[in-house]
């Protein structure tokens, strides 16, 4: 392969002297220094914990479980989310709801946030609009792994009423 000869710009005499260029550079940095000390106009740093940046609407944050009309859990323990989950982080134990139309409910519903990859497949798979990832919150840091397994109660705390129709028969 032939070598490509890049044409480099010729330096003028003033540029070769170096010192005028140094002074120019110093002028730029000094201008920024003075500006930022007195006005802070150009500073783009965000003081994170105090100054939070709003996330986009479709940000996939921590999960939450929605409520049905009686503020009970909307989930019917159909296992679609835990089946869809590529990380296998959703653990559901189903129980009998004692209702003809909706047979099952989750006795326990646990998500291991350390394992979760926040892909949003669970949300897509859910036929009942029971699990959502629109809380807009991060998984919080903690001192033990156990605290990162969030349970049904915690998931429901963030919940809300949903107007969507439950999938399947009835309702």
């Amino acid at each position, binding site marked *: 392969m032939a070598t490509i000869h890049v044409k480099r710009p010729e330096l003028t005499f003033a540029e070769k002297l170096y010192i005028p260029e140094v002074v120019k550079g*110093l002028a730029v*940095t*000094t201008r*920024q*220094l003075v500006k930022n000390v007195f006005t802070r106009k150009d*500073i783009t740093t965000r*003081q994170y914990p105090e100054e939070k940046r709003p996330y986009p609407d479709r940000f996939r944050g921590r999960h939450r479980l929605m409520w049905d009309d009686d503020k009970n859990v909307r989930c019917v323990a159909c296992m679609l989310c835990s089946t869809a989950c590529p990380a296998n982080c959703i653990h559901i134990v189903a129980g009998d709801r004692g209702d003809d139309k909706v047979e099952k409910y989750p006795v326990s519903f646990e998500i291991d946030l350390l394992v979760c990859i926040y892909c949003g497949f669970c949300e897509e798979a859910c036929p009942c609009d029971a699990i959502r990832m629109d809380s807009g919150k991060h998984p919080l840091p903690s001192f033990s792994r156990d605290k990162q397994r969030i349970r049904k109660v915690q998931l429901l705390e963030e919940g809300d009423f949903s107007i969507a129709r439950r999938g399947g028969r009835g309702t």
Partner: protein
Amino acid sequence: MSVGELILFGIIKFIAIVFGWVMLVATVLTLMERKQSAFMQNRVGPNRAFVFGKKFPLSAFIGHLLSDALKVLVKEDFEPPRANKWLHLLGPGIAVIPAWLLWVVIPFGPGPMPGAEGDHPFLIANLNVGVLFMFAVMSLSVYGATLGAWASNSAYSLLGGLRTAAQMISYEVTLGLNLVGVFMIFGSTRLNDIIWGQGQSAWGIFLQPVGFVLFLVASIAETKRAPFDLPEAESELAAGYFTEYSSMRFAVYSLGEFIGIVAVAAVAVCCFLGGWQIPWVETPVDASGVPIYGWLTVAQIAIFLFKMVIFIWLQMQIRWTLPRFRYDQLMKLGWLYLLPLSLLNLVVTAIIMYAVR
């Protein structure tokens, strides 16, 4: 005064100047530099270590200084395997002690006029060799870096140490030669006499403009700062000659460097920026040539310190503005441009002085 009193007052002054002012400035500089560079680069810099709560954001300044000090004190003092134990221990000390000793000959305030008898209250030792003593001591500080680097038993350190030695020896020549012009004009190597001379004629920066620029360049190289920071070039050598140092030993090295910056600023102020002279203000003296001390003296000391801060600021600003030289460029600049230029500067100074007289 007896010898004992001389020694006693010398020690008291030394402690007051070195630990009261120099170490203080050097410590504050470690934080100010980060802050200044941050503002130059549109960042905020360290502002988290609040000591009195978030209501007092400026208290973060004190907090960061304290936490820095605490950090270097409690960190593990690591010694690399197969390092030369004693040299590794001595390295930072050898680097920092010359940096302290430099302050022996720097006058912080007005002393007796040249030729007049009397003690200099703001000077630790009134040596007749003056700045030459400073250069002698300054060239010792290269041992600290090089020995520490050698003792670390690491390739990075060794390269950094070699570069330090080469660079400091090269640029010391220019540094010294540029001051010779000042010595010639004022006929003395005592900084006190030079400052008095500047009050009578003009500041050194106007008499020796080329000398000042060359001195500035050489002084930055001498303090091992960008664009001459090859001895500790972090992108190439990790941290250069103090790569293998941690905790307090590391802090001593960097403190020594910062003291060097302050010291070079002090010399520059004394030789080129009129020392403690306030422009258009004459220092009152009595018949024998000893200045009458009063409020003006306080103002003069303050202006000396102020000029030093300005010069340090300039050094920092240059350090965060320019990219690093390549090693061959550094040597070329030192030996092929700066050294001949400073020799030429000397010759021209001599010719002009002869013509004027």
